[in-house]
């Protein structure tokens, strides 16, 4: 009797595992389907792609999931069947079952079938590797140089003469007339990884080892990502935002970025604070004596929605807090607290807020 009871547990185990797998799938589907307003992509799911590399990967992943899912079902059912069917029953508890040592035919079958599956998987995989990695760069492509720093992103558009940080702007790419963005990836210090799940798989930024990746977003809006290779204390807050603009918006943005920094004489006091403190060692503002490259270029700081590599919104309060005590927002970031007086901070923030 107790024996019977125990074996029922096994059936329960099988069922519970099954339910967990199904629940996982449902939860996953539900998560993916929760969509915000159009143009907003709050959940960076790899199964909700909006760019060719991410879409090819999703195709491949569906194929791989189908095959592995099938293998799972077959083996899982077999295992469950064996566990339930061949449990010891009270009646024959004392007898030993037939002693079987093996079977060459069966061994051959379960060797050859997996080999065939591996060949199919490999062909599908190799095709997608080639399609993504060896894609030719069209003449219309936008070129960007992305440089990973502890713990922020530097973006340079060499053809357009733009330098910005943390928020990448790219034009939407019409499949009929593709305008993909090709990124050269460098690192200024440790390893980082560039990952916008809805646009492309990740590619590492490694010092002394230039890499390349590309995206061609098919939809405008904001896409989220973050550094995906552990790079030090504040790896977690090395966030990444990609704004996909219409061609008109992108051109307008680019023209604005190409302007020299705003020179508002009303805020000369704040500018003086910037120029006469250690700010200039790390930060650049076009038209001032600040040419540092350890930190983000601030020439058009106010054109960005966030500061501290996406760790805080670019509001008056946060900007002030960030200057006074960076550790309050991002403990361990390399920006030091400058120990400025309240009056100096106020002047500096007012000046920075003119940098449209």
């Amino acid at each position, binding site marked *: 009797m107790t024996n019977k009871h*125990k*074996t029922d547990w096994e059936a329960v*185990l099988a069922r519970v595992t099954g339910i*967990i797998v199904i629940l*996982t799938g449902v*939860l996953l589907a539900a998560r993916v389907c929760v969509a915000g307003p159009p143009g907003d992509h709050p*959940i*960076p799911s*790899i199964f909700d792609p909006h760019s060719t*590399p991410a879409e090819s*990967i999703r195709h*491949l992943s569906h194929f*791989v*999931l189908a095959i592995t899912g099938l293998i*799972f079902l077959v*083996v*899982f059912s077999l*295992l469950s069947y*064996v*566990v339930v069917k*061949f*449990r*010891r029953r009270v009646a024959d508890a004392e007898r030993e*079952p*037939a*002693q*079987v*040592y093996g079977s060459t035919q069966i061994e051959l079958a*379960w*060797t050859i079938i*997996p*080999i065939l599956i*591996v060949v199919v*998987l*490999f062909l599908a*995989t190799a095709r997608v*590797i080639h399609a993504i990695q060896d894609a030719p760069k069209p003449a219309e492509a936008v070129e960007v140089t992305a440089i990973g720093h502890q713990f922020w992103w530097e973006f340079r558009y060499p053809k357009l003469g733009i330098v910005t940080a943390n928020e990448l702007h790219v034009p939407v790419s019409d499949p009929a007339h593709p305008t993909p963005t090709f990124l050269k990836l460098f690192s200024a*210090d*440790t*390893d980082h990884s560039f*990952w916008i*799940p809805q646009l492309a*798989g*990740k*590619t*590492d930024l490694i*010092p002394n*080892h230039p890499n*390349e990746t590309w995206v061609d977003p098919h939809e405008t809006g904001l896409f*989220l990502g*973050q*550094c*995906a*290779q*552990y790079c*030090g204390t504040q790896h*977690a*807050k090395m966030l990444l935002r990609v704004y996909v603009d219409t061609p008109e918006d992108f051109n307008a943005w680019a023209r604005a970025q190409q302007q020299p920094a705003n020179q508002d004489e009303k805020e000369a006091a704040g500018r003086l604070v910037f120029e006469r403190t250690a700010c200039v060692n790390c930060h650049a503002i076009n038209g001032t004596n600040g040419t540092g490259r350890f930190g983000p270029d601030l020439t058009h700081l106010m054109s960005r929605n966030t500061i501290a590599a996406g760790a805080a919104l670019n509001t008056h309060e946060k900007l002030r807090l960030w200057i006074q005590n960076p550790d309050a927002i991002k*403990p*361990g970031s390399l920006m030091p607290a400058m120990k400025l007086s309240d009056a100096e901070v106020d002047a500096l923030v007012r000046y920075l807020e003119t940098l449209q």
Partner: protein
Amino acid sequence: MSPDAKAIQTAEAAGQPWVQTLHEWVTTVDHKRLGILYILYALVFLIIAGLEATIIRIQLMRPHNDFVSPQVFNRMFTMHGTTMIFFVAIPVLFGFANYLVPLMIGARDMAFPRLNAFSFWLTALGGFLLYFSFVGGSGLYGAGNAPDVGWWAYAPLTSRAFSPGHSSDYWTVALLVSGFGSIGTAINLIATIISMRCPGMTLSRMPLFAWLNLIMAGMVILAISPLTAAQVMLTVDRYLGGHFFDTQAGGSATLWMHFFWIFGHPEVYVLVIPAFAFVSEIIPVFSRKPIFGYPVMVGATACIGFLSLSVWAHHMFTIGMNSYANSFFAITTFAVGIPTGIKIFNWLGTMWGGRIQFKTPMLFCIAFLFQFLIAGLTGIMLGAAPFNWQLSGSYFVVAHFHYVIVGGILFALFAAFYYWYPKITGRMFNETLGKLHFWLFLIGFHLTFDLMHIPGVLGMPRRIYTYEPGRGWDTLNFLVSIGAFVQGIATLVFVANLVVSYFKGAKAGNDPWDAWTLEWSTSSPPPVYNFASVPTVASRRPLWDLKHPEDPDSRYE
């Protein structure tokens, strides 16, 4: 009984002073005692590294949590990973190999008992050095902190520019020292299995356990050596002005990655092959049938060992290798699935037509089969290089390898603990507590690691001390943490069972499971000399032959 052994037993019976007992344990060269030392040592570190995991999971329960600082969090995941791999998994598996291999092949000890003791104490010193970084890491009294470079310690994060102080040095030295210990034990296992088998035990009659540990030991030598070399190179970089990995002086960060993963991937199999070994001994006994396809099992394991040396760069699909290299490492990775699949099918074949008894060790083995299947399939997904570009470095990978290491290796290890506990201690464990441990751990495991795949798919990278709300990760991380606590409670039940049963358990007798390998033919616990007279065997299941003289295995092999 030899006069020495008699003297020892008399001394024990007389209640010798504890200093004497301690001295015997510290100076022992007996493979069984060293095996127990390895296992206890690993259990201590299992608790420590488990606490580190708990800190990680508390911090990640909700977005923007501030239970610990980013610095502490980074140390916790570095120490958790390093400890679990080098000071829990390797020692505990070596402990079982040490204890069981000589008994299973009918030998009285390992081939090199003193090397055996030396290797254990090196490993022990390694673990001590790693944790000494907390107090001595900066060279001043009490000023120090644990390494925070991740358990792969990727260059150039380990260069002096990014890792000042000595925390990374303690990491390096700990791995260097314990690496020599591992190589010593591997040499010892190989020598023992090759040259110490009892009369009649040809290689083809060896228990699968011995075969698999032989293959594992060979892989240890191949895998640990490059890691050890890399540690020396790193130290040269840090102190002697070398530039192997120093990218600021023209060194190569990817060189370290290659060194690390040519160790790191075979290491996975170094850990999982002993788990296969446990399962290959336990499933037949509780199915009451011999292992299905013994020669194929040996061949498949050798094949896994060989193939696993050619897959390391699948950990590096995102570093920008060219499409040919990526394709090569994709196909070798898929190919490992073939022999692994064969092994699962053979265990299935063993159970097919058997009379399966659901004792605690068998429950863990069955869960192992289900979970290892899933771990293997997510491994196939990760092997598809483009899919890997999305999944690599995310929580999907973390879920995958915990499925391998916890769902596979740890479940098999729990099975081994329950299966050989009566042999090692002479007492039966408490079956009710064992089942409670199983079900609690199973629920906790699935709650944690099934759900953990999903945040990875939703873009959550690993090794982040906090995350932004509103990305669909919050609820999942909360549930994952709850599951981790359930696993923690289950582990306490396990430890309680080990301790209580040691004092209160029923006497086990020589052969409580009606098993077939040689270790069950001697007393529990076995005497110092293992066997009063060296046994002679005629088949793979000597005790079956003994119990069924009318129908011995030797007739069919």
